[in-house]
């Protein structure tokens, strides 16, 4: 009986995330994209650059599963081949954001008010910058490459990581078990590393999922504008852009890269939601059923706010 109950009442573990159907679908989509990111160009059925002037603007067919573009190139192959550049640069931006944001976020809770103040103001300043324009400006300075273009995107993602990590760290450092450790003479470093850091992971995971979606969108936008890519190098945004140029000849065409971008961004957001709903830790797993059922009203609280459920 209790095993069945265990199933019904979800524990805050990664395993429970997979029980959500939306998470499973999202992961499947992302797995496919990851494979493409790794092996896209080799898996492409035809050469992404192979011109075939005899079959321009063809609709989907056996030979060209997603049709051909304005130069007769196979759309499916172009999109598959374009995946690595789009995805990996998006991940690059997220990586930069994590490196620049997480450590200061955790550190600001124990490096004193001065550091905290400065870090917050830097984050404030960065958050005021419009990302795409900033990226364009930076590429003007650093040179027109997508890798360079994602660096400013990454820098602009850092404040989000900083804020979220800082808030989570602050909240968890107020826990009573942290106070208990403080009473045993723990240094702030010990408090943070032993008690707080691992609880912040779920927040970071959720943030990463949604920021990757944002970064992917930013990549698509930049390549759509033609930043950082030299044609005929395929990218998702580039394909979308050129499709729009030839809208009258092939009105269906932009939907395909659009759908691909939307699907990957949507999958990432769905995964982020799933993690947020189910992946939370720092709470005791499976309270007694007796306590679960009577969460109708408040629990026994004293002046300190500690709680006990009274059934």
């Amino acid at each position, binding site marked *: *009986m209790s095993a069945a109950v265990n199933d019904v009442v979800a524990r805050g573990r990664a395993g429970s995330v997979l029980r959500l159907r939306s998470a499973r679908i999202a992961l499947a989509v992302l797995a496919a994209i990851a494979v493409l990111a790794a092996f896209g160009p080799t898996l492409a059925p035809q050469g992404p650059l192979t011109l075939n002037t005899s079959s321009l603007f063809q609709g989907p067919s056996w030979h060209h599963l997603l049709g051909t573009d304005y130069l007769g190139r196979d759309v499916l192959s172009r999109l598959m081949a374009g995946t690595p550049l789009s995805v990996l640069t998006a991940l690059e931006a997220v990586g930069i954001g994590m490196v620049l944001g997480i450590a200061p976020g955790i550190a600001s809770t124990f490096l004193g008010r001065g550091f905290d103040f400065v870090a917050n103001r830097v984050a404030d300043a960065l958050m005021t910058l419009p990302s795409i324009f900033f990226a364009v400006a930076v590429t003007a300075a650093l040179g027109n490459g997508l890798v360079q273009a994602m660096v400013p995107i990454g820098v602009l993602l850092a404040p989000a990581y900083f804020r979220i990590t800082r808030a989570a760290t602050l909240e968890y450092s107020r826990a009573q078990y942290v106070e208990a450790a403080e009473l045993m003479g723990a240094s702030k470093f010990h408090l943070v590393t032993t008690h707080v850091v691992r609880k912040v992971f779920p927040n970071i995971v959720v943030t990463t999922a949604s920021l990757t979606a944002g970064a992917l969108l930013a990549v698509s936008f930049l390549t759509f504008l033609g930043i950082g890519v030299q044609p005929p190098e395929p990218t998702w945004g580039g394909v979308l852009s050129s499709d729009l140029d030839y809208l009258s000849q092939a009105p269906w065409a932009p939907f395909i890269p659009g759908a691909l971008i939307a699907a990957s961004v949507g999958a990432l957001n769905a995964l982020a939601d799933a993690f947020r709903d189910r992946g939370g830790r720092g709470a005791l797993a499976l309270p007694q*059923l007796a306590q679960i*059922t009577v969460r109708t009203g*408040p629990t026994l609280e004293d002046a300190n706010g500690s709680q006990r459920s*009274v*059934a």
Partner: protein
Amino acid sequence: MALNDLLLDDPSVATPAVRGIPTREDVLRIDDLHVSVHEGLATAVRGVSLRVGAGETVGLVGESGSGKTLTCRAALGLLPAGCRIDGGSVSFAGQDVTAASRRAWEAIHGSQVGAVFQDPASYLNPSLTVGAQLAEVLRVKGRLSRQQARRRALELFGDVGLHQPGRVFHQIPAELSGGMLQRAMVAIAISCGPRLLIADEATTALDVTIQAEVIDLLLDLRRRNGLAVMFVSHDLAVVAELCDRIYVFYAGQVVESGTVEEIVHRPRHPYTKALVRVASGGDFRRRHLEVIPGSPPQVGTYMAGCSFADRCRFALGPCCSGEVQSVVVGDQHEVRCARANDVELSEELLPV
């Protein structure tokens, strides 16, 4: 009742408790209630029967998971999500409300039954004055005019022992202490003249001196208005101070019921005896503190036979198999114990 006397002479016959005929006097009557939780996964209340007569104070005592709170919530039509009544009935003054609709409950709440819960602050709007909230109830439910509602609200605040009702009327919950808030909640609960007040752990979170005041208030209301009270608590001592009759809950069932005198001085169920021993200490002597070995079963993991058998030092073979019926052992005194009539149990002395 002659039949019971005959049967009681023969200790080998387990007498099923005589189910009373519902009378118009019973303000609340619960018969053989079964409540399941988590969409039917486990049964948390297993065949509970109780009654509250007009002007009586009745206490439901038990630990976490004993089912007393769910019984109370079922009686109010306020079962949490996922819980439902699987069997039995609940009736107010003869009117069956087991399957009552939301609208039916809206009519019953306030006019037939009022309720106060553990943390009054969370049941009040923090940004409105308590006077306004009481007046609102009086206008909407009591259909009084603005003026009348205000006057009646001040009266009610006075009735529940709030000093300076005029001042309290204009205060928001944050400005009032726990005790005053609980009194305000009682005022709201009785504002439309219900015959029954259900108090679910209403004094648990209060300081002991305030708790004593609230208990005195409830006794006072009973004396003045004939208000019946059903008081749910894990604290046997509080229940003993306040109530006329007590139902002792364990593992989803009522294991003993009777007058306070009987339960406290002549408990027959081993669990009740243990509870009484554990709760004793009101005379503040240095003593060895009694413990009840083991712990109550988790909801849904009930064993065959008596649920207390694994912790009971009087348990014998028959205790562990077959359902244990409730047996009448005295005037209004029932015990759910397979050995209820055994001399050994009934004569065990208590150091109370």
